[in-house]
């Protein structure tokens, strides 16, 4: 559910920096962080693991039905904004 043009300009409530780390750390830590956040809040994740951006994050976020948007910020660098909706 990567609709989420609306999310691009939203200020995040929490930030998770997992640059340099590979699966399953980025998605596992994001999951843990989301569990502690309130419904409606937005998490911003910095990662440079393309395989997580292409596979693990979409799979996990689609499972929970959380809207998200991915922005490529540099060579192999990504920012993912995730809104906790339930």
């Amino acid at each position: 559910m990567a609709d989420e043009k609306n999310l691009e300009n939203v200020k995040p409530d929490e930030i998770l920096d997992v640059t340099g780390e590979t699966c399953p750390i980025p998605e596992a830590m994001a999951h843990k962080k989301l569990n502690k956040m309130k419904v409606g809040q937005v998490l911003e994740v910095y990662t440079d693991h393309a395989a997580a951006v292409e596979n693990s994050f979409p799979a996990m976020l689609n499972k929970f039905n959380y809207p998200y948007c991915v922005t490529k910020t540099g060579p192999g660098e990504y920012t993912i904004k995730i809104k906790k909706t339930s």
Partner: protein
Amino acid sequence: MNPYFLEYSLVAIAGLIFGAALERGRMCFVLATNNMIMARDSKILEGILWAFGISVLAFGIIESLGIVPIQAAVTGVFPSGWYDLVGALLFGFGIGLCGACMSGLIFRASSGFTQNWMQLFGILVGTIFFAFLIFPLTNFLYWILHTIPWLSIKPGFSDYIPHEWFGNAVWGPFVVALIFGGFFLVLGLYLTKRRFAKISKERGENYKEPIITWNMLKFKEPYSPRLGGLLFAVVAIIVLLASYFTVHKVTYMGVTTPYGSFDTYILAPFINLYTTVGHYKASFLPKISSNWFQIVPVAIPMTLFVITTFAGATATAILGGEFKWRVPKRKIMFLQNFIGGIFTGVGARIALGCNIGTLWSGFLMFSWAGALFLPTLVLGMYLALKFQQAIW
């Protein structure tokens, strides 16, 4: 043409293709398993099942048609036994801690992930720990070969399923390939169909992913894992045929032996000293004449294969604009990867191979090694995932 040159050239090309398939297809057993456990997502697993299914079927056809005669094929068959179960558990836990299997390690290290270089260093240390007689009680090779022979199947015909089931029938390999390879391929196709149906339902439109596109070939987007799987199978076939028709005996896929062999270069001046000291310290145990490094040669085609695999993965990472030296923000990840690497190295040596050399090649050899390696490998990866979810 010089057959040595031909074999090494073909194996080098196969390595380049393998590296590209790994990096572009994100072919990692840990990634596939974690995605299945955490999100029930089968995308990467489908690629691995395609690789296993197509290659096993191809090997069955090649052997049944006599292109590579059965007598030649069995010369490369490993033994299998209890050590596959134990080794795979340690190996699975190790690669789970590092988030990269032995093939996933190559594409991540080649993309610039420094923590996976630390994993590689841990693997080398684990292999040394295993292979030398420095510490008599920790030399697992000694125990495997000399003290615990029970529950082991000998190499060659005695661990070749077609011979075990169908005697000398030439169609034996094809039937066994149809059972194992067919299972993998059908499961892969089913999971793809199920995933497409699920996405189609969510989006309210018919969803399909192409296996190959121009953008994939131009490195603008990653390969579909199914294309990665197809290339895996092509590489295994090239390695088999190149080895059989040139110099060496039949060679199956493997990457861990060359990893360990690199140690030899580094430690060659000390090997005799360590061995001597080890023999002295191990005087209460029966003597063995050599350590692992003196048994396994270094200058083998598969060492070149590993080098060109790294080169291929690095090249495609650069062409795809994804190469960058990446240092983890949390430096403790270096320690985690080093420890995971030690588990990986020790486990791989106990099981006489990794997820490529024992799991995949076990099925390619039609031996029991692959089937024994698989369940505890998955258990090890599962335990590592749960451990990390608990501590991080």
